[in-house]
């Protein structure tokens, strides 16, 4: 009886120690923050798991977390060729929104946005989710009309969106130039006020910590080199750290989905291309919303540190080099200065590239594959960050039940044979 009580006590005390709160902050302040416990373990790779998730980015870690939490899976590993959150999760411009036109896209992105709204509490980790609004500009009469039509479609799906006049935009963003004489004048725009940004690393770290606490093994520096497949079904994964037996394997490797699919013996409708972003030197608060423009091709927000975070379209050619062409950056900055003349004397601090897996219809793939018990979640193109919680949630469901739920079903691979494409080029061409 005493033993039992002590066991229970020790369990609650570890739980309390691991819980971040005002109390734990105060307690650790006393010891000058030298005694914080590690946020997650670095376990040894076991030879066998029920489920192996390949890719420890936001989507992969979220998948493992929801598998452990909602489907009661106990024996899960997340393996990654590099470090946790070191791929596109750590390279994007952190924009979150759900204002997509088609019902299928609205389904998954709104599912995701709803999870974002409670994510920090759910994970007990501050993801710094900030619903500062996402404002998309229109620069031609036609674009404004198309935008209005899209806003109506979005609202019919119960997602907030409203069209704004140039004057209303100027009120929200005082530094914008709405002079009608511009080459690309601001003719209007639409805003999703529930959209915004989050801290990308915190999302990966939060999911990693929460999944780890549910017993998920996160194995870093463990690159996949092949698969063991018997009679068309997966039996294990070959890695640089040895072979792992697995009943089910989920693959979430943005930037390398095509490479990993080839190891399993099939091909995907995916092109992998560089997408670049850059940040400026930090300045005082000047922009408290996210601005996107399809016509002049750029998007910008200001981080909490004060840096302007800028991005544009992907490079046109396939590449795995994690660097793109300078003319893309030139075009992006020219567009930014045209809209915000006040940015012209800013210096840029750093730029980088990630590799994005783009699908022919600019929509993702969440699907079974020709190999039984091998599942792929890929093809998010330039806009996967916003979908992190929702993508992990429905992918976990697919892996656990071997059947896609109603949100994931439209994104199966067979849409490229059946012709049910979800063409989101209009909404996803620029906005990431």
């Amino acid at each position, binding site marked *: 009886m005493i033993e039992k009580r002590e066991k229970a006590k020790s369990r609650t005390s570890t739980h309390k120690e691991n819980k971040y709160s005002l109390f734990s902050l105060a307690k650790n302040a006393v010891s000058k923050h030298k005694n914080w416990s590690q946020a997650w373990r670095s376990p040894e790779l076991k030879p066998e798991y029920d489920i192996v998730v390949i890719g420890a980015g936001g989507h992969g870690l979220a998948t493992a977390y929801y598998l452990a939490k909602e489907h009661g899976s106990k024996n899960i590993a997340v393996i990654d060729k590099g470090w946790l959150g070191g791929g596109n999760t750590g390279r994007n411009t952190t924009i979150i929104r759900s204002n997509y036109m088609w019902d299928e896209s609205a389904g998954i992105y709104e599912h995701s946005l709803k999870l974002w709204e409670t994510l920090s509490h759910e994970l007990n980790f501050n993801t710094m989710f900030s619903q500062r609004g996402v404002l998309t500009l229109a620069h031609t009469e036609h674009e404004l009309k198309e935008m209005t039509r899209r806003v109506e479609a979005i609202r019919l799906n119960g997602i907030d969106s409203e069209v704004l006049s140039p004057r209303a935009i100027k009120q929200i963003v005082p530094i914008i130039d709405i002079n009608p004489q511009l080459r690309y004048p601001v003719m209007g725009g639409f805003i999703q006020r529930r959209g915004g940004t989050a801290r990308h690393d915190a999302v990966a770290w939060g999911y990693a910590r929460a999944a780890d606490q549910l017993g998920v093994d996160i194995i870093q520096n463990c690159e996949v080199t092949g698969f063991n497949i018997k009679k068309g079904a997966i039996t294990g994964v070959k890695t640089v750290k040895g072979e792992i037996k697995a009943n089910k394997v989920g693959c979430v490797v943005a930037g390398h989905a095509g490479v990993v699919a080839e190891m399993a013996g099939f*091909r995907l409708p995916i092109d*992998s291309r560089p997408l670049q972003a850059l940040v400026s030197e930090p300045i005082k608060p000047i922009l408290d919303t996210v601005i996107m423009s399809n016509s002049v091709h750029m998007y910008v927000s200001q981080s909490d540190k004060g840096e302007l975070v800028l991005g544009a379209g992907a490079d046109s050619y396939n590449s795995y080099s994690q660097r793109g062409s300078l003319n893309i950056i030139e075009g992006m900055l020219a567009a930014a200065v045209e809209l915000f003349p006040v940015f012209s004397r800013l210096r840029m601090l750093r730029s980088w590239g990630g590799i994005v897996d783009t699908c022919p219809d600019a929509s993702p793939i969440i699907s079974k594959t020709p190999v039984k018990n091998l599942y792929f979640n890929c093809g998010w193109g330039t806009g996967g960050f916003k979908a992190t919680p929702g993508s992990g949630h429905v992918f976990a469901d697919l892996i656990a039940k071997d059947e896609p739920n109603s949100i994931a079903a*439209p994104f199966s691979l067979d849409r490229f*044979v059946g012709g049910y494409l979800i063409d989101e080029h209009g909404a996803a061409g620029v906005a990431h």
Partner: protein
Amino acid sequence: MLHIECPWCGFRDDAEFHYGGEAHITRPDPSTTLTDEKFSEYLFSKTNTKGLLLERWCHRSGCRRWFNVLRNTITNEILEVYPVTEKPSSKQGKETYERNWRRKSPPKKTPKTDEVK
């Protein structure tokens, strides 16, 4: 920034070029035996190699002519430039051409899952 040698205009920045994707894809015969799977493969399946890739480029802002390129997608090194109507002539180019799945195994079917309601 890629530095591409147009066979007619010489070396230019990639900003002048339009990317045409994978080269040497043959459109299947539109006969009654052509299946959805086969046509989907022609339309959507990508080679997307991490390594050597045979691809098409068009000098859009120059002579506006198409040509083929052998490029390494890891380093962006361009190894060969050759006419669209021909096959690559370098050793690496020939190997890349022969190794391509389009000239090898038949495609595998994608599984049927629930159709969109």
